[in-house]
């Protein structure tokens, strides 16, 4: 532990589809997708938008590309500084 009184940063900044999003530490990527509205993570086979449903790694509806890794379950992925998130919706 450092003796410094400076508080650690309480927010992280990531990019969602190129847009800069700043969220509190501890936010998951799935939650960050909804920072400016209802979360949308992908399009279905018919091209309609879909968003997270279960929030706990079961439904796979929240999957997106995170730092180049495709099909990441964003509800299980914590936001990290400088993260790049790309949805297909």
């Amino acid at each position, binding site marked *: 532990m450092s003796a410094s009184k400076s508080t650690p940063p309480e927010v992280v900044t990531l990019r969602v589809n190129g847009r800069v999003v700043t*969220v509190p530490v501890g936010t998951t990527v799935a939650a960050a997708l909804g920072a400016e509205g209802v979360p*949308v993570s992908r399009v279905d086979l018919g091209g309609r938008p879909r968003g997270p449903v279960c929030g706990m790694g*079961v439904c796979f509806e929240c999957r997106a590309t995170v730092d180049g890794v495709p099909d990441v379950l964003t509800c299980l992925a914590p936001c990290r500084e400088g993260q790049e998130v790309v949805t297909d919706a």
Partner: protein
Amino acid sequence: MREACDLVVIGAGPGGLAAASIAAEAGLSVLVLDQQSQPGGQVWRGEARKRENRLARRWLDRFAASGARFRPGARVVAAPEPGLLLVEEGSASVAVRYGRAVLATGARERFLPFPGWTLPGVLGVSGLQVLVKDGLPVRGKRVVLAGTGPLLLAAAATLQRHGAEVLFLAEQAPAARHWGFALQLWRHPGKLLQGAALAAGLVSVPTSTDAWVLAAEGEARVERVRLSVRGHEETLSCDYLGASYGLVPNLELAKLLGCEVASGAVVVDERLETRVKGVHAVGELLGIGGVDQALVTGELVGHVVAGKPVSSELERAWRAVRTFAELLARHDAPRDELRRLATPQTLVCRCEDVPLQALEGCRDLREARLYARLGMGACQGRTCGAAVETLFGWSGEDVRPPCLPARIGSLRLPSPSPHTRAS
């Protein structure tokens, strides 16, 4: 990568944490795998960081001090032979050799399809609660919740605390069944207190029994919801809808390991050992019973694997929890109307976009898979499986590896280490 341990615990919720802590304190080498980035499971999600819940804090601290090793972000994808699990962790793969196993994989929500349930903004009741706990901003948002049982109240309380305007709570259970359940709670003082505390905070929220969602409507996202409320139809404009009906155990891993499953729960003996020697099951896998059951059974199995005597107090506590669980199961059982909400065009399988009409003529899950691709997508039937079980009575099939989408590299058997090579 390879790992070895005396005991592997899959799932770091209350049940897994209790079993792992007690076993590790007794000197066993214990490895705990969980899909999340921190221990706590769904019920204590985020508590490792927030530390607001006293019970969670106590167990998380005990676990941290116990000597058990925790592997976050770990998903078991296959079990090619007894005593071996193949695990994916982010972009790495791990082969885990174990002596005994404790399955603590918990439960998920039961989703039943209705028109519009695929619109963004429509989530499970707990799904919405979890996302809000994880940082989804809902201040000033209008939310409708439809479901059943105590989880409905818990989700409403969380949403209110985060500034959402909870417009309506729709409890599917008939009034008599619901209040009968509530009156039984005096036998379970802990539950009664929790329920009363929750209800006290929710006095301003309109609530109705005999109420459920008929349809969610909107263009690119949910804009309004049509409800059946005691026989009348009502429409509410909203930003979010949480709709799900109780919980079902996550049985995939138990089935993958060959454990016997009956009536939707893993079959165990009094030592919570499954029909597979050395493999135990705790918590929701024994039938939905909540955090109390998870802790009691986790402690019990912790003592068993550590070779310590099980106190009669623990055994009594478990019996009490089972009585509550049976009450809950009767209360939460989905009513018939919920089976008839989907129209021919309503998607049943969300991964493969399979509408109800595509299932016409199918007699079981196998035919639905073969002819309509139901359950063949990314979630492997985790969402539509419980739905078609409720809709058509199709029960789940055996689970085949990989039980989750996995990389080829994760399915490769590790080369045997020199001292185990056959002589």
